[in-house]
């Protein structure tokens, strides 16, 4: 029995398809404008960060345009929402690449979204800049069409190991939550400690949903560590700290700043948290770029991601200028390292960099997030880290370096 379309149903189908045809192609920008795409999480679990990341990019674009654009051409931002979901991110990226024909997509946040979008970018020769931290991203066969400004596990692990050694630790134990970063971090910290004559004496991975970690703690303490690295999230690290106190552990403790935060210090008695060190990647808060951006966004305490996207669009604009105005993903790929690192004059803003480039000088851009120097697979070589210590239930800043 065949289905017959009723007249009304036919009308509805017809109207729908007409509406598809009527979607206006985007109003063409003034001839010669350089179109760049932003793909940040405006909704979903990254929705806390995306709007500010976008604002940072819009501010830079506004500054560049007010100063006359890139070699006289205005920047035009096309902004899409990745919904913190790879499936939605892929559709949004297709629109940016195929319809808007952007030279670069900037600001992807979740690692899964970045990994999903990256193949579309390198296949269609569109440049991708990201703040995702997963180690595997830069190992993709991206042919250079990708850079990221977020330090990966390697860099973070190295910083932790160096700091622990600097505190005089010889025997380090790790208590880590079951997460993608647990084993890679353990490996890199162990290697780095050995380089400095210290030792990783015990490493235990635990399930985050347990209500007590006494047996795991006993297991680690049996190796008599003088420093414990608590590589978990806030809820489980809270319990670990309590159990460590009860177990009478008096050695040093160190954790990620996102795990041991002010909320945790407020929730626990000061004697439980006393002396705990925290480390977090930090924006370059002393830099002129950071100060200008903080003022523009009206926020003294910028999140690292907004600082990084500020640098993304600056790098892209400068790379296009260095390529004599060739606004393609390939040109950005070939020129981004020529303006981000090297012996050129140190600049901290895109506008200033464009001016120098116009005078025929070479530049080395350092941004609000850090030096923005990349290795051959697109990882940053170095970034600033913020070192703090809990003291009577408050954080004391040790250094930013």
């Amino acid at each position, binding site marked *: *029995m065949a*289905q017959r*379309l009723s007249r009304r*149903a036919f009308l*509805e*189908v017809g109207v*729908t398809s007409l*509406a*598809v045809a009527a*979607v*206006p*192609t*985007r*109003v063409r920008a003034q001839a010669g404008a350089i179109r760049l795409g*932003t793909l940040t999480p*405006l*909704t979903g679990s990254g929705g806390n960060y*995306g*709007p500010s990341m*976008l604002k940072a990019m819009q501010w830079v674009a506004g500054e560049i345009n007010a100063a006359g654009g890139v070699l006289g051409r205005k920047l035009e931002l096309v*902004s*899409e*929402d990745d*919904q913190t*979901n*790879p*499936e*939605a991110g*892929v*559709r*949004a990226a*297709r*629109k940016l*690449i*195929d*319809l808007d024909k952007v030279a670069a997509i900037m600001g992807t946040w*979740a*690692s*899964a*979204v970045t*990994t*999903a979008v*990256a*193949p*579309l970018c390198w*296949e*269609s020769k569109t440049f991708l800049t990201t703040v995702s931290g*997963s180690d*595997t991203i830069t190992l*993709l*066969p991206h042919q250079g069409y990708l850079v990221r400004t977020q330090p990966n596990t390697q860099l973070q692990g190295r910083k932790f190991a160096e700091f622990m050694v600097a505190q005089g630790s010889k025997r380090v134990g790790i208590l880590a939550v*079951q997460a*993608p970063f647990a084993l890679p971090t353990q490996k890199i910290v162990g290697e780095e400690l050995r380089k400095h004559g210290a030792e990783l004496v015990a490493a235990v991975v635990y399930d985050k949903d347990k209500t007590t970690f006494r047996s795991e703690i006993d297991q680690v303490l049996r190796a008599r560590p003088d420093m414990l690295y608590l590589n978990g999230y806030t809820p489980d690290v809270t319990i670990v700290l309590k159990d460590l106190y009860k177990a009478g552990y008096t050695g040093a403790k160190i954790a990620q700043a996102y795990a041991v935060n002010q909320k945790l210090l407020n929730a626990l008695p000061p004697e439980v948290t006393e002396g705990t060190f925290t480390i977090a990647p930090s924006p370059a808060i002393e830099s002129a770029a950071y100060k200008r951006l903080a003022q523009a966004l009206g926020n003294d305490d910028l999140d690292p991601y907004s600082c990084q996207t500020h640098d993304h669009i600056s790098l892209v604009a400068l790379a296009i200028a260095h390529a004599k105005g060739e606004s393609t993903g390939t040109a950005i790929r070939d020129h981004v390292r020529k303006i981000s690192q090297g012996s050129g004059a140190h600049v901290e803003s895109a506008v200033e960099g464009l001016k120098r480039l116009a005078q025929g000088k070479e530049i080395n851009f350092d941004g609000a997030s850090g030096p923005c120097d990349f290795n051959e697979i697109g990882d940053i070589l170095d970034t600033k880290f913020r070192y703090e210590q809990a003291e009577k239930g408050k954080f004391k800043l040790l250094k930013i370096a």
Partner: protein
Amino acid sequence: MENYLVAMAVFAGLYALLALGLNVVWGMTGMINLGLVGFFGLGAYASALLTRAHRAPIVLGLAAAALVTAAAGAAMALTTARLRGDYLAIITLGFSEVVRLVASNELWLTNGTDGISGIPGPWRGRVTPQTFNVVYLAIVALAVLAVFALCQRIRSSPYGRVLRAIRDDDQVAAVAGKRVIVFKVQAFAVSAAILGLAGALWGHYTSFIAPDVFTPLVTIYVVLALTAGGTGNNVGAVLGAALVIFLMEATRFATGWVGMLKPVQVAALREALIGGALLVVLRVRPRGLLPERLARS
């Protein structure tokens, strides 16, 4: 522009497959499956692992995806034989979460939350991305046509009539001498196989899968697609899927129409518009755009 439309047509086709798969079990047999994204994911992983790690041809991957998910669907129907309505909905929802958690934690098999990248696609890399897009659209269109024909055949056959009888009152069907459980298991297996095929096709198209892809959001979109198109009606399933993709994409251009809006507001407005449009559809046509019409014999 053309490339973008082609890509969206591919996604619409994949959603159509999902809606058709859901229709078999929900629309025709009356068993709710809120875990369809679990089967979608299972199919995607089955094919990706086989074609990537074991270098099997893609066709074999697709077949394996359908087989694995059919087996999973049959197992699920057997274990939930006595459950219906809300209870079945909760179990199936739980199943999809289990699939996601296993994919996140069994690193040796699934590479965990990092996902699997570099899944091969037909002629990917050997032709331009544009050509690949068009080729893939043809493949997906073919799959939709084949599945659609199969579903229509089921629907109009005496077999489909038994499924509808079970949907409307399974005790009556049992009294009439039909072995209800067998039909339920078969319907669940066929439905799951279609969902798994859609998942495999998704993986080979985008070349990357991760546990994050297979979130309940996709289930919601597909349930909405089928409800808006017309539960029980295969044409409605395809139409509803196209409508959902159209709404999701058309709302992007709200900036052009409304002006003055910031991207953050547009993002929020988009979700509101999609929900609102579907509400209107269901208010004006409670049984979907193309309600199921039964043959009188």
